[in-house]
């Protein structure tokens, strides 16, 4: 158990980049106090980013029989921030074969997150 109760976040809502301070002395999820925001977006961002930070992830996987060596892929939704590197690692050895259609599922339910990895473009077979 950490003694830390004040956490710093940089708001991404606009270029002003307010420095948010989140105090969770009163509890981890309920009752966090956000200060330093300039607008409501910042307050909501501070709460979300503290309770459950999530990210989209995009990478590319090997493809055989196409013009390019790689085809771009993405997560169909956000995954917990702490899993982003693991998700990238989970797809790094995948190899698929052209032709590929946009939306083709390359890996379903990656790491049990409920999120799929799908191709983000068509790629014809050469």
């Amino acid at each position, binding site marked *: 158990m950490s003694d830390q109760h004040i956490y710093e976040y*940089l708001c*991404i809502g606009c*270029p002003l980049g307010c420095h948010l301070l989140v105090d969770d002395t009163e509890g981890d999820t309920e009752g966090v106090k956000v200060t330093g925001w300039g607008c409501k977006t910042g307050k909501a961002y501070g709460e979300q980013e503290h309770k459950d930070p999530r990210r989209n992830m995009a990478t590319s996987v090997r493809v055989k029989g196409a013009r*390019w060596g790689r085809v771009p*892929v*993405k997560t169909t939704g956000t995954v917990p921030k702490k899993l*982003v590197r693991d998700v990238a690692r989970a797809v790094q050895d995948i190899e698929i074969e052209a032709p590929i259609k*946009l939306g083709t599922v390359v890996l379903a339910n990656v790491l049990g997150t409920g999120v799929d990895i799908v191709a983000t473009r*068509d790629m014809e077979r050469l």
Partner: protein
Amino acid sequence: MITAEPRHLESRYDVVIAGAGPAGMAAAMGARERGAEKILLIDREREAGGILWQCIHHGFGLIHFGTELTGPEYAQRCLQQVIDGGIDVLTDTYVYDISPERTLKLMSGTQGIKLVDAGAVVLAMGARERTRGAIRIGGERPSGVLTAGLAQKFVNMMGLLPGRRVVILGSGDIGLIMARRLTLEGVEVLGVFEIMPHANGLNRNVVQCLHDFDIPLHLSTTIVDIRGRERVTGVTVAPVDEAFKPDMSRAWDVDCDTVMLSIGLIPENELSRRINLRFDPVTTGPIVSSTMETTANGVFACGNVAHIHDLVDFVSRESLLAGRSAGEFATGKRPPADNIRLMPGDNVTYCVPQTVSSDREHTIYMRVKKPMEECTIKFGDIYSKKLPYVFPAEMVTIKMQAKFLQKFHGDTLRVDVVKRG
């Protein structure tokens, strides 16, 4: 990839568009919408779509398509519209000359050298990256110094890594995106060095590409020396003062095998310079009217050719207008000529278009010189609008209604961004 290679190249088209990136594709749709029948979209790459194919990250399309897409998804949507619209797409083809009478010289592996006459032309060649030579970094000239966009193509399309230990110079969005991308591919990104006292990219990218992966961002710091005989072996970095002069007493060395540059884009206007256009010395692109027409009759320009954009959504919007105007020109329609010149004043770098007409509404794109909070943008004394903030890296977009412009009776309208109070 989906293609629409013309079976037979015609000798005359209503509208010919040079460059099939997001600007060219939107222009083609605009021309089609306004009644141009034969439209030819040309690209030097093997597939249309432009740089979007390699921008595999999220963050595109929120404005233009109303949903968040990756770059390839955005490109494919645009290309599908182009194909459904019956536009001829000629790839692997270089436009290497244009005359004031709008005859274009093309060169391609399949077509050889061809002349094509155009009722209207749209210049949509985009931009290219600034390189080491543009900022004159001292030191040796080993391999391993490359631009962020090139590294992006290597990693995302070709499956090649540019190096193992990378230093990034410049904090533009592509550099930040690539810092994350390389980290996820197992490359060690040692730091991002930015000569300005603030990051050049979006906060979102500073947080999600650097902070998330503990990559340090060194502000007011630059590379002063690159070392290595065959391959880069290291760089020397130093903090700079307000005049950007490096303080060598506080310099330090970083061992690395790669230097990646994210130091800005230059509008690609070699083709535009073949005809006698007038250029804006600030944007370095052609001066354009409110219909995106250059100073050559029937030759239009849009996207990064005209000025560097931060969002592809704005490129699409601006280029749709250019294409509509080209379509109207080709079918013999002429809107009233512009009667007001916009003059950048206090804290305004440039305005595009450079002229407007008081008979209709306009979208005016502009950049500021320095960050300012709680400010007002003023168009002479006819119109003002409060802005919570402005930043040089973020384009300012203003919708200007005709009723305000009709109150103005001069020919040069000054635009200022000033602090409130």
